């Protein structure tokens, strides 16, 4: 136990309060408004349900990273939930494989309004390297309505956070 406490003490706080991307004036503005928006429009918490609709799994790795100690997106009131019924946002990765088409629709239908959909990664935005085929429906918007696209293959944690912040701004106007 003492070793664990010692290790935690020496690791210190890794979460980056002043990461480089906050130097970006645009994101800086978003960042400072984020908590306010989450508080005002999502009652202090924004719940995201991530669904892999056919990705290569690299997008998932980076989504994991934003929950890790360096990014810790939860400090902005954003957290990932296990059920679409608890979610405000559906974060979809991958081209939608035909075998996942119905599952993606059903997941989206299970969400309560207002609901938002983010297409995460190039595949989700435009089909990416896999495109549309006998096995793939291509972009997420071919299957369910999409509110925001985050490009990248995979989007980096910073791009993901920017995207989620941008969606909040958009949602605020609705």
């Amino acid at each position: 136990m003492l070793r664990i406490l010692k290790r935690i003490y020496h690791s210190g706080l890794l979460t980056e309060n002043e990461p480089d991307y906050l130097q970006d004036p645009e994101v800086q503005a978003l960042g400072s408004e984020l908590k306010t928006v989450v508080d005002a429009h999502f009652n202090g918490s924004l719940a995201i349900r991530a669904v892999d609709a056919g990705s290569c799994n690299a997008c998932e790795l980076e989504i994991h990273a934003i929950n890790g100690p360096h990014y810790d997106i939860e400090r902005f009131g954003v957290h990932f939930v296990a059920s679409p019924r608890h979610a405000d946002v559906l974060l979809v990765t991958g081209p939608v494989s035909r075998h996942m088409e119905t599952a993606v629709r059903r997941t989206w239908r299970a969400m309560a309004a207002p609901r938002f959909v983010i297409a995460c990664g190039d595949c989700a935005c435009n089909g990416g390297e896999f495109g549309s085929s006998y096995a793939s429906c291509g972009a997420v918007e071919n299957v369910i309505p999409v509110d925001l696209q985050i490009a990248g293959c995979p989007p980096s944690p910073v791009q993901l956070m920017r995207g989620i912040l941008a969606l909040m701004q958009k949602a605020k106007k609705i």
Partner: protein
Amino acid sequence: MNRFDWLSEYLARLEDEHVVVPSGNTQSLAPAHLLIIDPEDWAKVAVVAKQMGLRWAAIWGDEQDHDIVLTVVLVYQGDYIALRTAMTGDHPVIASHTPVYAAADRMERHLADMLGVQFDGHPDPRRWTRHRAWEADEYPLRAHFPAAGQGNGLTPADSDYPFPPIQGSGVYEIPVGPVHAGIIEPGHFRFQAAGEPILRLEERLGYVHKGIEKRAIGRDAEGLARLAARISGDSTVAHSWAACQALERACHVKIPAKASLIRGLLCERERVANHLGDIGAICNDVGFAFAQMQCQALREQWLRHSLTLTGHRLMMDVVLPGGVRVDIDQAGRELLRAEHVWLREQIGPLFDILNDHPSLEDRLLSSGYLSPASAAELGVSGYVGKASGQAVDLRKDSPYAPYSRLSFSVALSEAGDVAARMAIRQQEIYSSLELMNEMLDILENTAESEPTQVKLAPILGAEGLGLIDGWRGEIISHVRLDDKGRIAHFFARDPSWFSWPALERIVLGNIVPDFPVCNKSVNASYSGQDL
């Protein structure tokens, strides 16, 4: 013993069974030996191979001038042989290898769905990769099947897949997925349980099938590398390497020593990054979040260095046909050396804690046991195999550049439980650090001016085999070029084809709530096997 010394005995034993091998060669699928087999002898070649202890590693097939050509890969002591047979006709029928080799089960079903080959004597005739995106009498890998599909509207859920029912008092079923609660890939698990212990688990995969084999056809070398980099995102370096190696062998191109050293470095970086993530995640699945946070922090630093070195956190699209996109200069080498020292300092005390923590021991020791016999039967490689006594490591058994010049020991255990799979990962991190330092030493003495990439001139109609040890284990890739030098056939066999069936055995008798930790300790790829 010399390479392929055993092959003469195999051929002699085949002859005893009245199987003649009409032809074969050592070039077209080098380093594997190619043997042409009569379709009638297809069952016998497997029976004899099994008697001699060969490991069954892959099957693929494609249509060539109305013939269906099947190729099976078998391995003995790190030597690969490819058995090939051709069948004519619209409804090819051939003996199944599954009654002899359990490992062949799902890959044969995949081929039945994709190419319309009927495997006689297969114990499980149900579909595997096909859900409801195409009909039972359509085969996507046939030449006349359009890649764009037949325009069959919305794809319904695959709700009538015949899971075998189970009966008995107090016995119940838990269907899970395809959409899972966590941030992971989709697939369906059907648990049958009595009380808490799992009586039976059946996996139903294929949800992320996105037509990779079909999409590969007609691409050029660069296009194939981009696709291969996305077979399984966590193995992007290993899969691109395997595909590029197959292409380079098909084109008789030898890449510069520097390029293979850099590939080796990147592949070991990928291994370390994934093992770090997995060790944290295994501990997290038994409620020990401390390890998860520590490992994630180390992994994040590691990925940031990958970004600095290669311009991509996961090193995607860095391995290219003919070499690599990046050079690692003096500054890069210094960064790496310092980073290796740093990681070693970090993981030493961390792993000490993990390996000496009673509540972790309580949950990980003896959970999720895979016997060495099961592992051998299922042909499992990588950390799952190594934790159950299977010393399969291509870097050692069938070394390719740069590993042919390096020495290291393969981590091995017979314990077969979750704790063993975690321990193997820890040991592999240490051995990767050593390997990477050795590679840096050699790189130090390589001329700065040496190129990192050479041009690839396609040899029309040629084929090649890629054999790479990725972080999950053995990857086998096959590439055949058409008469214009474009891809005519591509198949990549991810190690997950074998670790998924292993998971079905691993969970038996474990309690349902321990499924996540058992699953994490295996961490098979959905995307890599669904293709």
